[in-house]
């Protein structure tokens, strides 16, 4: 069976499930400051877990959404895409129209059909969703669809001022979430702590998609307690925060990208900034294939192209969090989009002046 036909048949299954349901629900949200995404659920019970991280992007429905995502399942006795049409040999498939991810063991199917801008998310049991997936709903479908529009997800936090945004890049433990929340606490804009979207029109931009954050423990950040997820914390896992509406005025949908910061935890009090390379930035920005399904060389080229010309710095993180925020603010004030990198290492900041 051709892939496009298979995806079309799966979509038909969704429509049958939707038409026979008595508790459908929809929500609409705006992505990259321009695209309206409509999500259709066959069960209103599914909506809350998908809503929290994108609540800041919710918008009025559109007669012609740019992308429609269909969400259904959670009923083992009903439709299973595998038993009817065979189990595919492999997980990822594509042709010129569609992208499909099948995880037959986990009971999940996701797809995008670019020709009719429809995304599909089926799960045999939504209780099998990992706890951290609530922090970035629909990321795979958005990733596959937005990539063709030349918007790319990167593994980064993002903070900003009115001058522009900095991406904080690097793998877990590098300090990007802590730094991002510290900036938010001190009045900077925030566009995500784990995945952000980047794109380029006249200049590169960062687009905040998810207003979530994950912290080891809320005890070190008591002011964020109102944003703590109401779901019971999974033992051994981080605390999850949904920062909207507590920080409504600081969650930014779009900011020009001014700098890429590569945090490194340093054994010192004061934070320092030293110039780094585009290569180091790209290396730190790219998600691993386990973090973003279906990641391919087009993502690499896209991230490379969008960030080319954006100055990159190593951020040697000191223990003085307030001074760290001041350093980042100062750097953003000086580094407007597409300016040359700062010539001098070790940015000095007069805290009295900030």
């Amino acid at each position, binding site marked *: *069976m*051709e*892939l496009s036909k298979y995806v079309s048949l799966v979509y038909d299954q969704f429509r049958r499930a939707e038409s026979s349901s008595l508790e459908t629900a929809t929500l609409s949200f705006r992505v990259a400051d321009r695209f309206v995404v409509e999500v259709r659920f066959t069960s209103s019970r599914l909506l809350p877990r998908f809503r929290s991280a994108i609540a800041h992007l919710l918008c009025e429905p559109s007669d012609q959404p740019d992308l429609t995502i269909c969400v259904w399942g959670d009923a083992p006795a009903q439709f299973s895409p595998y038993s009817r049409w*065979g189990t*595919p*040999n*492999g*997980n*990822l*498939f*594509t*042709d010129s129209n569609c992208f499909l991810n099948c995880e037959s063991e986990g009971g999940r199917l996701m797809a995008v059909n670019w020709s009719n801008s429809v995304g599909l998310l089926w799960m045999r049991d939504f209780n099998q969703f990992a706890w951290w997936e609530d922090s970035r709903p629909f990321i795979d479908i958005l990733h596959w669809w937005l990539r063709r529009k030349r918007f790319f997800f990167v593994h980064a936090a993002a903070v900003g001022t009115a001058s522009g945004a900095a991406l904080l890049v690097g793998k877990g433990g590098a300090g990007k979430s802590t730094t991002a929340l510290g900036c938010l606490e001190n009045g900077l804009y925030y566009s995500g702590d784990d995945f952000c979207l980047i794109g380029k029109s006249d200049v590169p931009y960062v687009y905040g998609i998810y207003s979530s954050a994950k912290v080891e423990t809320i005890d070190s950040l008591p002011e964020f307690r109102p944003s703590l997820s109401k779901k019971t914390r999974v033992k051994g896992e981080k605390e999850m925060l949904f920062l909207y509406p507590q920080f409504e005025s600081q969650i930014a949908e779009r900011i020009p990208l001014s700098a890429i910061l590569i945090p490194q935890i340093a054994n010192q009090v004061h934070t320092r900034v030293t110039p780094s390379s585009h*290569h180091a930035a*790209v*290396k730190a920005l*790219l*998600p*691993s*294939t*386990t973090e973003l*399904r*279906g*990641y*391919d*060389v087009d993502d*690499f*080229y896209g991230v*490379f*192209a969008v960030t*080319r*010309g954006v100055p990159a710095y190593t951020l040697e993180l000191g223990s003085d969090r307030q001074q760290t925020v001041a350093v980042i603010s100062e750097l953003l004030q000086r580094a407007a989009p597409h300016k040359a990198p700062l010539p001098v290492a070790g940015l000095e900041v007069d805290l009295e002046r900030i």
Partner: protein
Amino acid sequence: MDSYSVAGSHVAHQNIDGEVIVVDLLKGIYFSITGSGSIIWQHLVNGHSVDQIADHMLLSHDASRQDIEAAVDKLAKQLLDDSLLVKNEEGAVPVPFPVPSGDIVRKAFEPVNFEKYTDMDAALMLDPIHDTDESGWPCQAVGAVESPAGN
């Protein structure tokens, strides 16, 4: 005269604002080619020989033919050594050189910069994504590589 082509579908390449980025998806290595190298790369993958490229670039670049030929030859050897290009069979027909519109203004021949980055294999050795065709359920995409984590 030897001419060349890209070594296979496992070699991706793109020109980003004058910088050619070539990715070997099997090894997870990428290369950056800048300066006059980005133009030389395009002529090489279009199937032109070193001599042909040197003759063509002499028309539009202010340098000696010897210098241009040496730079083209060196880059071609590097690309062969890194398995990004392969030699064509005898008789391969190259893509014609572009015809310039208007008068040719000779410009400086910039040094070729060729850099290799080998520390991103975790990001660039990508999951196999299967192509599908009319015969039905998917076949392995040409040049697809196995993910280190398995999938």
